């Protein structure tokens, strides 16, 4: 089969590789009908996430048709159309039983590696480095899905791939980010980043009762997409973002702030250049200007919710503001499985059509070019969907 492979920092290639096989009784093989490039894949592309190996198959947003199941999988069968959550969860550990699916105790074969970084290992993820399990990803014609009796979620034929594909990651990720804000009716929510997760955070905040959402983003087409959802927008390159947010909220600040940018933030402030110099010199792992601004701008007693991916050690995090303003910080890889029935209902009811975010539809062979287009935000690129067959 053909698969999108990481070939080194900033090198992506489509290679011919062996087909996946059932390795464990609870595995399934899925014939991938649609797969997307995620913003977090860009952190792999440029080497910000450690423990990648040349030849690793990328991709954690994919769906398709069940091709084969192992003897331990009884609830799905060949021919079923499923979306596959990006965290791999066993369903039987204490964490899965408590719906903390992305904290699954059992799915990471390289838990020892993640323990060195994080103390305890989170769930294994598809196509997201060896410390996260080293699982081959779904930007391929076929994918092996471990614990297939827990992850894959059947979707109705009445919905198109593009309407349900983002249940794998970005829709639940945006939704959990908004849920983590503990939104009260009429609240003001500020969202940093108008990429796909930011877009779903904006819409989810409204679904959960926010009165007002303010998106902070510099790319014009992303701001337009946010405005189409009813958000007001600010330019993230404007040095006066804090003052504007303060004025817009009558001197109080947003009730909650969502950082949907993550570890490779850009910004107009001196701290961005400071982070950039430090990360380039390998003295820090993450650039965090969006997170700093979110913490700074949040109202007293408010919540900062962080769906953006951070990987390591954050420098000059204004923790004093967290303590002195009594902020709550919530984060985590998304417990995707937890949200699927709720979010599918939203889609079926027509409350949201997730396909709004798609700007590019290409074949798998276009992956190297599209990674670059997406990274550089060229050609109005917000979300790329690839058709591997």
């Amino acid at each position, binding site marked *: *089969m053909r*698969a999108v*492979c990481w*070939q*080194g*920092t900033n*090198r992506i*290639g489509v*290679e011919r*590789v*062996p*087909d*996946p*096989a*059932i*390795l*464990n*009784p*609870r*595995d399934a*093989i899925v014939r991938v009908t649609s797969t997307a490039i995620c913003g977090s894949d860009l952190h792999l592309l440029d080497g910000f996430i*450690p*423990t*990648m*190996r*040349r*030849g*690793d*198959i990328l991709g954690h947003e994919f769906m398709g048709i069940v091709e*084969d199941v*192992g003897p*331990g999988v009884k609830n799905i069968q060949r021919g079923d159309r499923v979306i596959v959550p990006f965290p*791999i969860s*066993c*369903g*039987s*550990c*204490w964490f899965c*039983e408590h719906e903390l699916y992305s904290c699954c*105790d*059992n*799915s*990471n*074969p*390289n838990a*020892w*590696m993640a323990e060195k970084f994080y103390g305890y290992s989170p769930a*294994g993820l598809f196509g997201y*480095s*060896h*410390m996260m*399990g*080293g*699982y*081959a990803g779904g930007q391929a*014609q*076929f994918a*092996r899905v*471990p*614990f297939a009796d827990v992850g894959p979620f059947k979707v109705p034929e009445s919905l198109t791939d593009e309407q349900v594909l983002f249940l794998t990651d970005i829709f639940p990720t945006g939704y959990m980010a908004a849920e983590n804000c503990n939104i009260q009716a009429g609240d003001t929510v500020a969202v940093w980043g108008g990429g796909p997760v930011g877009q779903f955070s904006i819409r989810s905040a409204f679904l959960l009762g926010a009165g007002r959402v303010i998106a902070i983003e510099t790319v014009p087409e992303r701001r337009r997409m946010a405005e189409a959802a009813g958000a007001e927008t600010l330019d993230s390159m404007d040095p006066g973002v804090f003052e504007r947010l303060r004025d817009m909220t009558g001197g109080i600040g947003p009730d909650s702030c969502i950082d949907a940018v993550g570890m490779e933030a850009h910004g107009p402030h001196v701290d961005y250049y400071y982070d950039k110099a430090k990360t380039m010199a390998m003295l820090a792992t993450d650039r965090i200007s969006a997170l700093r601004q979110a913490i700074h701008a949040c109202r007293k007693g408010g919540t900062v919710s962080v769906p953006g991916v951070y990987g390591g050690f954050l420098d000059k995090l204004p923790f004093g503001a967290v303590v002195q303003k009594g902020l709550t910080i919530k984060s985590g890889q998304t417990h995707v499985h937890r949200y699927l029935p709720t979010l599918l209902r939203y889609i079926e009811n027509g409350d949201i059509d997730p396909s709004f975010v798609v700007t590019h539809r290409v074949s798998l062979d276009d992956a190297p070019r599209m990674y670059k287009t997406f990274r550089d935000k060229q050609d109005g690129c917000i979300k790329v969907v690839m058709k591997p067959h």
Partner: protein
Amino acid sequence: MVAGGLLAAWGLQRRDSIGGSAAVGAAALLYRGATGHCHVYDALGVEHGRQRGTGVIADRYSDTRARLGGSRGIHAEAAVTINKPIAEVFRFWRNFENLPKFMEHLEQVADREEGISHWVAKGPAGVSVEWDARIINEIDNKLIAWQSLEGATVATAGSVNFDETEHGTRVRIHLQYDPPGGRVGALVARLFGEDPRQTVREDLRRFKRLLETGEIPTTEGQPSGGRSMATHPSAKRPRDGSFADQRPLRAGAAR
């Protein structure tokens, strides 16, 4: 007593440091043989009925060091919590023939009669180490302890404690191997790698995974693109063999 005597004789015969330590090691076994004093209950703290503190792994009473007379050789302790009923966890372990399914250094354990079992440890190039062990203590759903028979190639003892916690069944294991030195000793040492504790922790992780999920998660046998160059240095294989080779249950058809 016989084992101690043999070890001592063998150790003293060798005029090097390994032989010397074997001779010293043998002293504890000799002592036990001579006095007939059984440390087992001491070691396991059974009749003391002491309330165990939570999270304490290495209390004196469950320490196999007491059994083997010191901290020589390979000593490892680790704990894991398994989200399964205590009876199920206990039963699985009590069947020693299950141990090689998750303990990397074991090739096979065969139950013989009356609490005696035959243990075979893995070795490179067909070399293996074998010994007999017997259960020296067993309390249903609480603890199992075993030790090698006198005269065994390797002096070894182990104990495993089971406790109910709000997160599941906590399993605490103590393992000690006191290899005799020479080739056999080197082999046993190699089985546990540089960090025996980490090796045992990985064993317990496999134990937990097997019980909780019915399988041991793996990526061995999955496809990848070309592997040469550009491997991140932190992605090299661990010494404990946790990337154990595994064949596909079913080969993927060519597409």
